[in-house]
């Protein structure tokens, strides 16, 4: 049996109600429609195609396991959803079914001050967690752009990327272990070894990363043990202006190569991004025309070390053509980076009129050497879209360090999309462009996605090209672990595995 059709048997609903209690099984239309999409651009004219049949809000790992077992018995898809903030549609149902909302799993289960770990439910938000950790002088430094609204479970399901990962690591480094409900309903703990709070182990296969970033296709994490750091004494976030992108790109390398121990990340803004910000961002509207590209960096740590490192960064920036933009912009803009989902999204028609748009954020991982070429080719793709219709607007590019050596960067082109005007024709244009954008990343030796995942329409077609034989291993694993195809069916093109069975 393969869970690919919509609709839930009444008996399945009865069994779900027995496990959860009727208050945590919701079938009302608004509750289901609210959980059909994520903030990424969405084909609003096809909303009904993505609406789940039922929403469940389990309160324990045991309840999640029972839900998955029921789904297997009745052949119903299960789509896990944490904050619903992911930008690759991981939480968007493709085959209707049960929407497994993890928000009730939001407890701080254990705080181990001696080993500096905590154990939380998958529905815990990082900002709320850090409010609890702050009084103990600790912090959990997993810092996505959705920091105030994304949840630990989603970070595991997408193998998230952190803004300050160059200092503290990304989600894969910060999550020590997690409880995981397999597609069979069996509960397993994945971590480094069996201890649960270990930073390194070589016992057996290293399974933890395999069960991260699968977008719910291999089960669902319900509880995680996290590595904690001392809350930094000090933060420094200088922003520098440059005459052009090329100079900024070279300076970025020099800044990263200062190799300061407190260096937590750097970002480059390209010329289209600065032009976009001049439209309606208070920090950039008053900037002179000579400000055409930017770099910012951030240091976190002990105050004396941050000061010494900061001076070294300032010197490197100045020697490479930078002009410091001042404390007000540097501090204000950095603080806003923790919360980019709060940004108002204004696009423009070609005539300059303001339109409300949703935000597409491409997120390839690209080597430093390839950034200029990828940038040029991506802007050309979006310019072709823009030339055809006002539905698309180029909002410029950022690139963020993913590691302190500067080897590769989360490379982002932001595209505004006028959702209200989407129809099948413009959506098809978008899907073609997504495919082209992904192919550029792969052609330059990059990866389609650094942090979101790569299972949206268009880009997903390029995943086998990027992964080669690795994609065949994905298919083999999916078939072995989820023989009924209940976990998030349709994602990553893995339905094909089961279609072969039907033949």
């Amino acid at each position, binding site marked *: 049996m393969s869970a690919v059709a919509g609709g839930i048997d009444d008996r399945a609903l009865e069994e779900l109600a027995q496990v959860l209690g009727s208050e945590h099984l919701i079938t009302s239309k608004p509750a289901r429609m609210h959980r059909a999409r994520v903030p990424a651009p969405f084909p609003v004219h096809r909303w009904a195609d993505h609406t789940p049949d039922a929403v469940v809000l389990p309160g324990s790992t045991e309840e999640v396991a029972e839900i998955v077992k029921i789904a297997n018995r009745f052949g119903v898809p299960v789509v896990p959803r944490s904050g619903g903030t992911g930008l690759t549609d991981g939480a968007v149902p493709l085959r209707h079914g049960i929407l497994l909302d993890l928000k009730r799993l939001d407890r701080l289960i254990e705080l181990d001050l001696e080993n500096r770990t905590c154990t939380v439910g998958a529905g815990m938000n990082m*900002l709320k967690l*850090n*409010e609890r950790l*702050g009084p103990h002088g600790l*912090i959990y430094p997993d810092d996505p752009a959705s920091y105030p609204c994304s949840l630990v479970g989603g970070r595991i399901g997408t193998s998230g990327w952190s803004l300050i990962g160059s200092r503290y690591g990304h989600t894969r480094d910060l999550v020590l272990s997690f409880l995981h409900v397999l597609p069979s309903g069996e509960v397993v703990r994945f971590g480094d070894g069996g201890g649960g709070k270990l930073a390194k182990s070589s016992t057996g296969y290293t399974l933890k990363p395999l069960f991260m970033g699968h977008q719910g296709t291999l089960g669902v994490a319900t509880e995680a043990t996290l590595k904690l750091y001392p*809350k*930094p*004494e*000090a*933060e*420094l*976030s*200088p922003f520098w202006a440059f005459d052009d992108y090329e100079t900024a790109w070279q300076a970025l390398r020099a800044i990263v190569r200062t190799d300061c121990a407190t260096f937590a990340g750097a970002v480059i803004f390209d010329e289209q991004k600065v032009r976009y910000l*001049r*439209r*309606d961002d*208070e920090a950039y*509207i*008053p900037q002179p025309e000579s400000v055409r590209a930017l770099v910012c960096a951030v*240091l*976190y740590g002990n*105050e004396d070390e*941050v*000061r010494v490192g*900061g*001076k070294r960064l*300032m010197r490197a920036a100045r020697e490479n053509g930078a002009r*410091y933009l*001042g*404390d007000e912009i*540097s*501090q*204000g803009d950095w*603080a*806003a980076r*923790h*919360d980019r989902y709060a940004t108002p999204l*204004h696009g*423009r*028609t070609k005539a*300059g*009129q*303001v*339109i*409300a748009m949703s935000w597409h954020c491409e997120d390839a991982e690209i080597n430093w050497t390839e950034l200029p070429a990828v940038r040029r080719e991506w802007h050309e793709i979006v310019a072709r879209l823009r030339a055809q219709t006002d539905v698309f607007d180029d909002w410029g590019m950022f690139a963020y360090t993913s590691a302190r050596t500067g080897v590769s960067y989360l490379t982002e082109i932001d595209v505004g999309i006028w959702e209200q005007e989407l129809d099948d024709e413009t959506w098809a244009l978008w899907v073609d462009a997504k495919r082209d954008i992904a192919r550029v990343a792969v052609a330059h030796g990059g990866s389609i996605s650094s942090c979101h995942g790569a299972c949206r329409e268009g880009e997903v077609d390029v995943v086998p090209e990027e992964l080669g034989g690795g994609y065949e291993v994905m298919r083999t694993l999916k078939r072995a672990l989820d023989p009924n195809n209940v976990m998030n069916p349709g994602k990553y093109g893995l339905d094909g595995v089961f279609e072969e069975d039907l033949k």
Partner: protein
Amino acid sequence: MSPYRREEDVVPPEPQRMSDVAIMRFEHIFEVDPALMREHVRQQDFPNWDTQRIAASRTDHLDWMHRHWATVVVSGEELLDE
């Protein structure tokens, strides 16, 4: 006590042009030129105090975010002076 005058609340000060696409009515608060919001964005009367409240709340939020992440914020200007 002076009587409440609604127009005093909803009539904003004369704008100052800041760029081709932005104006300023209150100090440090930039607004998209209303001429660019005629065709697709519905306009409404907006109390002056609410404009200022939203801007102040944003500043409060950013200050809170700094405190949330670190105890002190080091000044880049200070480092350059040193």
